């Protein structure tokens, strides 16, 4: 009983213990913040990667792609684990905005838009699709031009003080776009990305849906769809807009929705040889943000069938070069198949890794199947196909970040040993200062173990108080890490740690996981208790008389 009593009393009365508590507090908070931010970073990376790819990827990592994807998709569609599968094509190209000298080397991705919507989270990253649902299409289209509603009553234009500035015509988009805007407006979708302007304020006051994004405008006539029809192209957001320090994007009026862009690509044959470059105009229909900068700054997305045709990867007749006779069919090729699976089948969770293995075995069986008459070249393309879980396919990104997280956490944990050493030093100092007290306690009947336990409890108490306060500090710091960093940036822009124009994610990860908190607290208490052992041993080993005589 006296051990607890004296421990608590020394904790309260010996102010030097506050330094030990402060050291444990800061180390606990530091490790928790590092674990949470790095762990959150990794989680976000995984989440984004999964959202981009689906659950299982079938790929042969060849620019030439692989055949028999339609047959494979048809086969596996019968499997109970498979929800949906879609082929994807990858190529490279040069993107040029019309009437500008602006060019970008890009990775061209051919997708079946509706299927991709089902397989992964691609839809959630589209900008115009959010405000004009259903208008983002990779099919041929014209450019929408904002006009005015000549039949409607003019809008009363007021400034922010409510003063009437005049009257103006109501802006309108061409019917499909206007209908889509009305629909999202009615559903409560509002633009939270663009800073409001005087015009948007006027529209809001007048109850008119605010036209979001950049469009061609003709204020003298009705809204129209204009120009030649070209296929739609979705462009990575970091190509078409500038990312600002606050994480939002600045769009340029020179790149309105529906503007013409040109892609120049180099097709390859099934044998891997390069064909004549082809050039194809598109219309910018939307822009995509996955949250991974490397993708958003390089990828453009067009229709799968169109890209397949442009790259000469669609099905074709096989012609004998000597006789000129048609001798068979060259199968169509794709670069990748993305598959979304059911999480459970018959109430049992699906083993994704085992399923990927089965899918790979199934596909590889095509190489020797009598169903298909493949050329030697096509057989080679089939044989290199692999099926991977999304984690395996992204392991080149995830594994280094995972290692980095472990390394940084370990480094900070080692630094935190300073706290244990500090606890040792402070307790040892307290033992030296309290030598006579130890003698007194022993003289009135305190045992060696009891006296040692006072200092072990003292170390543990320092750990408990320090780690609890440190966990609270770390928790709230992580939780409010973004406002803190915004505040620091406001005070001095040079103090901006998380530059949203550089990092893939808008926000610093700000979630603290329960098991991280428990681990940090347990480690801090253990370290503090260990730090007290030497002092406790010395205190326990003291002879009462020697301690009483201590000057």
């Amino acid at each position: 009983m006296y051990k607890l009593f004296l421990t608590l009393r020394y904790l309260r009365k010996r102010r030097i213990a506050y330094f030990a508590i402060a050291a444990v507090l800061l180390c606990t908070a530091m490790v928790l913040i590092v674990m949470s931010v790095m762990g959150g970073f990794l989680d976000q990376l995984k989440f984004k990667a999964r959202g981009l790819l689906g659950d299982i990827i079938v790929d042969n990592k060849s620019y030439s792609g692989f055949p028999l994807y339609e047959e494979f998709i048809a086969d596996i569609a019968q499997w109970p684990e498979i929800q949906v599968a879609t082929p994807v094509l990858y190529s490279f190209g040069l993107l040029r905005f019309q009437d500008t000298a602006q060019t970008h080397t890009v990775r061209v991705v051919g997708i079946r838009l509706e299927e991709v919507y089902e397989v992964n989270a691609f839809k959630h990253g589209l900008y115009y699709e959010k405000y004009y649902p259903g208008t983002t299409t990779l099919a041929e289209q014209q450019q929408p031009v904002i006009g005015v509603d000549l039949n409607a009553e003019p809008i009363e234009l007021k400034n922010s003080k409510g003063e009437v500035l005049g009257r103006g015509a109501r802006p309108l988009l061409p019917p499909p776009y206007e209908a889509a805007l009305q629909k999202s407006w009615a559903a409560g979708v509002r633009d939270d990305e663009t800073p409001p302007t005087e015009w948007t304020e006027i529209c809001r006051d007048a109850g008119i849906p605010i036209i979001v994004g950049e469009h061609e405008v003709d204020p003298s006539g009705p809204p129209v769809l204009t120009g030649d029809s070209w296929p739609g192209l979705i462009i990575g957001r970091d190509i078409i807009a500038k990312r600002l320090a606050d994480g939002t994007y600045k769009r340029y009026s020179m790149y309105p929705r529906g503007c013409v862009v040109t892609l120049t690509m180099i097709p390859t044959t099934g044998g891997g040889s390069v064909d004549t470059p082809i050039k194809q105009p598109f219309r910018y229909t939307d822009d995509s943000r996955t949250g991974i900068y490397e993708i958003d700054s390089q990828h453009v997305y067009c229709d799968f069938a169109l890209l397949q045709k442009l790259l000469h990867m669609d099905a074709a007749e096989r012609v004998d070069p000597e006789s000129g006779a048609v001798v068979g069919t060259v199968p169509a090729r794709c670069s990748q198949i993305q598959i979304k699976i059911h999480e459970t089948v018959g109430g049992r969770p699906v083993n994704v890794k085992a399923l990927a293995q089965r899918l790979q075995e199934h596909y590889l069986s095509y190489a020797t199947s009598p169903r298909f008459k493949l050329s030697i070249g096509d057989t080679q393309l089939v044989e290199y196909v692999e099926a991977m879980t999304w984690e395996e396919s992204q392991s080149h990104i995830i594994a280094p970040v995972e290692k980095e997280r472990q390394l940084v956490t370990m480094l900070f944990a080692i630094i935190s040993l300073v706290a244990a050493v500090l606890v040792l030093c402070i307790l040892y100092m307290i033992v030296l200062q309290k030598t006579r007290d130890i003698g007194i306690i022993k003289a009135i009947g305190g045992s060696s173990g009891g006296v040692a336990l006072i200092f072990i409890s003292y170390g543990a108490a320092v750990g408990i108080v320090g780690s609890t306060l440190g966990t609270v500090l770390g928790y709230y710091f992580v939780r409010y890490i973004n406002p803190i960093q915004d505040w620091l940036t406001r005070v001095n822009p040079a103090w901006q740690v998380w530059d949203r124009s550089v990092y893939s994610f808008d926000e610093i990860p700000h979630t603290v996981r329960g098991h991280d908190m428990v681990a940090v607290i347990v480690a801090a208490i253990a370290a503090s208790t260990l730090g007290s052992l030497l002092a406790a041993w010395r205190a326990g080993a003291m002879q009462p008389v020697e301690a009483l005589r201590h000057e």
Partner: protein
Amino acid sequence: MSSPLLVAQGVQKTYVMGRVQLRVLRGCDLRVAPGEFVAIMGKSGSGKSTLLHILGALDVPQAGQVLFHDEPVFAPPGRRRFATSALDVLYGYERRRIHYRRFAFGFVFQFYHLLPELNVLENVLLARMVGASTFVWSRQRARARADTLAVLGHMGLAERLRHRPAELSGGERQRVAIARALVHKPQILFADEPTGNLDAVAGAELMSLIKGLHAEGQTIVMVTHDPTVAGQADRILRLEDGQLRQV
């Protein structure tokens, strides 16, 4: 003469300071009967305090034995190389000494030796607390507190309960130390120069208090160099050349 409470037989103690060996006790013999008040006198550095510490189980002799109720306080000399060694613990002598310090002996020091972080009440109560487990303490707390308040009242410290040692006079501090030594009703009270740090008036008051305790039947072994203080005892012994002699 009734059966002795405490017996010292041939107690020897030598301090080793580098190459110098200082034999302070060269075979001390002593018998203390229940209710007796024994004073040990001697010159400064003669080994009085060392003898008292050995009698009170705070120090370990190199040779000789101390018997309390005919029970040996120390391990046999051959096993006494390390004072609180594993052997001591194994044979139970260390535990025995802790038990005596908790329940049978009370010690009063010349320099009071109160814990500065605790107030008067807590300093005295601690002596009761040390001997109790958490479970026992939860049941005995009220009684221990009542006993403590009674002892402190007896010492005239009822108004000083919440004061820290630093806020008390020398005489008051020594009375707190006596209260702490008495709170568990010890069979023997050891007092090491109890008036040595007090002025004449405070010293006289304290001796009056100690005499009162003796009158109530308390066995007391006191060390002093002051013949006036020693004169209050039933029996006076002088420590000379490391041995005790009857005065």
